[in-house]
C-alpha cells in the first residue's frame, strides 16, 4: 500500500480535568474516503483540527505528507495540502466577494494574481459556480455558501480534504449536488457526518470515536427484501408519475448499516 498521507500516532488531547481524546491512532492513505463518526461532543471536529495543527496534542506524534510535524511552521505546509472545510460556512468565507475568497488561498501560497485568478476561475467553473464570481459573500444562501467554501478549499489544490459535516443544513437538492461533486474528486477525504446517505455513498472506510478513543468501524450492507412505505410529498393535483390506488410498487434495495 502507498505511504499514508496523514498518520496520527497515539494522540492524547484534552483540557485540564476534561480529556477529549486519548490514545488515538489513525492513517489516511491516498484514495481513501474515511467517514468519522461519533456522538455529539465526542471530539470529531477536534480530531480534524488536530490533523492540521489548529490544536496541539498533549501526547503523540503527527506525521503528514512525508515528515513529522510539530511546530506552527511545519503545519503551514500541511494546511495547504490538507484542505479543511469548516462546519459553518460563515466562518470560512470572510472576503468581500466570492472571487476574492477563492483566490485568497492560492495568493497565500505565493501565486501571482493572474495565476491565482486563473485557478479560481477554473475551480469555480468545475463546480458550476462561475456566475457567482462577483457576488458578495454575505449575501449568498446557505447552500451557495457551502459550495463556495468547497471551492475556496479546492483552489489550494490539496491532496486531502477534511470536511466537518459537509451536508449539514443543506436541502435535498443542494446536498445531491454537493455529493455528486465530492464523488468526482480524486482527493483522499476524511469527513464527519451524521448523514447516513452521505456515508453510504461516499465512504470507503469508517472510524468511530467512542469514549475518547478511535475504533475501526465495520461497514457492511445486507440485502433484504421487504415492503415499506416512504413518506412522499408532492403538491396536490400534480401528476407525480404514480397512482394512489393502494397497490404496492415493486421495491427492492439494499440498506447499508453505518
Amino acid at each position, binding site marked *: 500500500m502507498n505511504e499514508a498521507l496523514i498518520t496520527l500516532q497515539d494522540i492524547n488531547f484534552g483540557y485540564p480535568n476534561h480529556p477529549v481524546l486519548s490514545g488515538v491512532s489513525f492513517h489516511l492513505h491516498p484514495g481513501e474516503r474515511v467517514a468519522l463518526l461519533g456522538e455529539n461532543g465526542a471530539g470529531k471536529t477536534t480530531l480534524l483540527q488536530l490533523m492540521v495543527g489548529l490544536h496541539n496534542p498533549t501526547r503523540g506524534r503527527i506525521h503528514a505528507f512525508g515528515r513529522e510535524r510539530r511546530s506552527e511552521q511545519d503545519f503551514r505546509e500541511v494546511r495547504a495540502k490538507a484542505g479543511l472545510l469548516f462546519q459553518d460556512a*460563515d*466562518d470560512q468565507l470572510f472576503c*468581500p*466577494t466570492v472571487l*476574492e475568497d477563492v483566490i485568497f*488561498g492560492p495568493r*497565500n501560497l505565493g501565486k501571482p494574481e493572474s495565476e491565482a485568478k486563473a485557478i479560481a476561475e477554473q475551480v469555480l467553473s468545475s463546480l458550476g459556480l462561475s456566475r457567482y464570481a462577483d457576488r*458578495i459573500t*454575505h449575501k449568498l444562501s446557505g447552500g451557495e455558501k457551502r459550495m463556495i467554501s468547497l471551492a475556496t478549499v479546492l483552489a489550494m489544490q490539496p491532496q486531502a480534504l477534511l470536511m466537518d459535516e459537509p451536508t449539514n443544513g443543506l436541502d435535498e437538492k443542494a446536498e445531491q449536488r454537493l455529493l455528486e461533486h465530492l464523488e468526482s474528486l480524486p482527493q483522499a477525504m476524511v469527513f464527519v457526518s451524521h448523514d447516513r446517505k452521505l456515508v453510504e455513498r461516499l465512504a470507503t472506510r469508517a472510524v468511530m470515536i467512542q469514549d475518547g478513543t478511535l475504533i475501526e468501524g465495520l461497514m457492511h450492507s445486507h440485502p433484504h427484501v421487504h415492503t415499506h412505505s416512504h413518506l412522499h410529498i408532492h403538491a396536490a393535483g400534480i401528476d407525480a408519475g404514480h397512482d394512489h390506488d393502494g397497490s404496492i410498487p415493486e421495491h427492492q434495495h439494499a440498506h447499508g448499516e453505518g
Partner: protein
Amino acid sequence: MQLTLIEKESRNDRLRQFDPRLRLITALLFAMTVVSLHLIPLLLLTLLLALGMAWWIGLSGSLLLKRLLVMEGFMIVLLVMLPFSVPGESLFTLGPFNASIEGVQRALQIVLRANAIVILLMALIGTLEPVVLGHALGQLRLPDKLIHLFLFTVRYIGVLFDEYRRLRLAMRARAFVAGSNRHTWRTFGWLVGMLLVRSLERSERILAAMKCRGFNGRLYLVKQNIWSRYDTLALLLSLSLSGTLLLLEQTL
C-alpha cells in the same frame, strides 16, 4: 439587514457609470468647501445643492428624514445653548439670559453646514454598496488595516445581528417582556454577554479558517474600478463648483 441607503430598483444607475472613487473624492472636496464657508446665503445654496443631489440620485425622502432626525437630536443641545453663550449684540432676553445675534448666526451656520454635508454624504457614499466602498478606499491607498477592519465589519455585522435576533426571539418565546425592573436589566446583561462570548468564539473560528488557507497578514482585493474620461470631467466640474463657492465667499 440593509446596509445601503437605497433600493436596487431606484435611480442609483445615474451614478453607477462613475468610478466610486470619484464619489469619495467629490464628497470630501464638497465637505471641505462647506466647512470653510461662513455666509448664510452661500450655506443655504449648498444645502439646496445637496438636497438637489439627493433627489437626483433618488434617495427616499422618508429615509433621509429619519437619518437626519438622529443627527438633529444630537445637535439640539448645542443650538439651544449657542445664542446664550456667544457674547455680542442682544437679540432678546430670557430672564437673566441674553441671546446674542452673533450666537444665533453661529447656530444657524452650524445647522446648515452639518445638514448639507450629511445629506451629501448620504447621497454620494451612503448609496454605495459597502463592499464597493471598501474596494474604492483600498484603491485610494488608505492603510490596509483600516480597509480590513471595514470589510470584516461589513462581512460579519449581519451574522452578529442574526445571532442577536435569534437570542431575542428565544427570549420572547419564553414569554419575556422588557420592563423597567431588575429582571429585565439582568436579562439584557446576559444577552449582551452571550453575544460577546459568541462573537469571540466566532472570531477564533474565523482565524482558524484563515490559518488553514495560509493567512499571512494580507487580504487580496481584486481591483474592479476603472477611472474613465467622464470621471475626470465630473471631477473638474465639482472642482470648479467648489472654487466658485469659495471665490464668492471671498468677494461678497
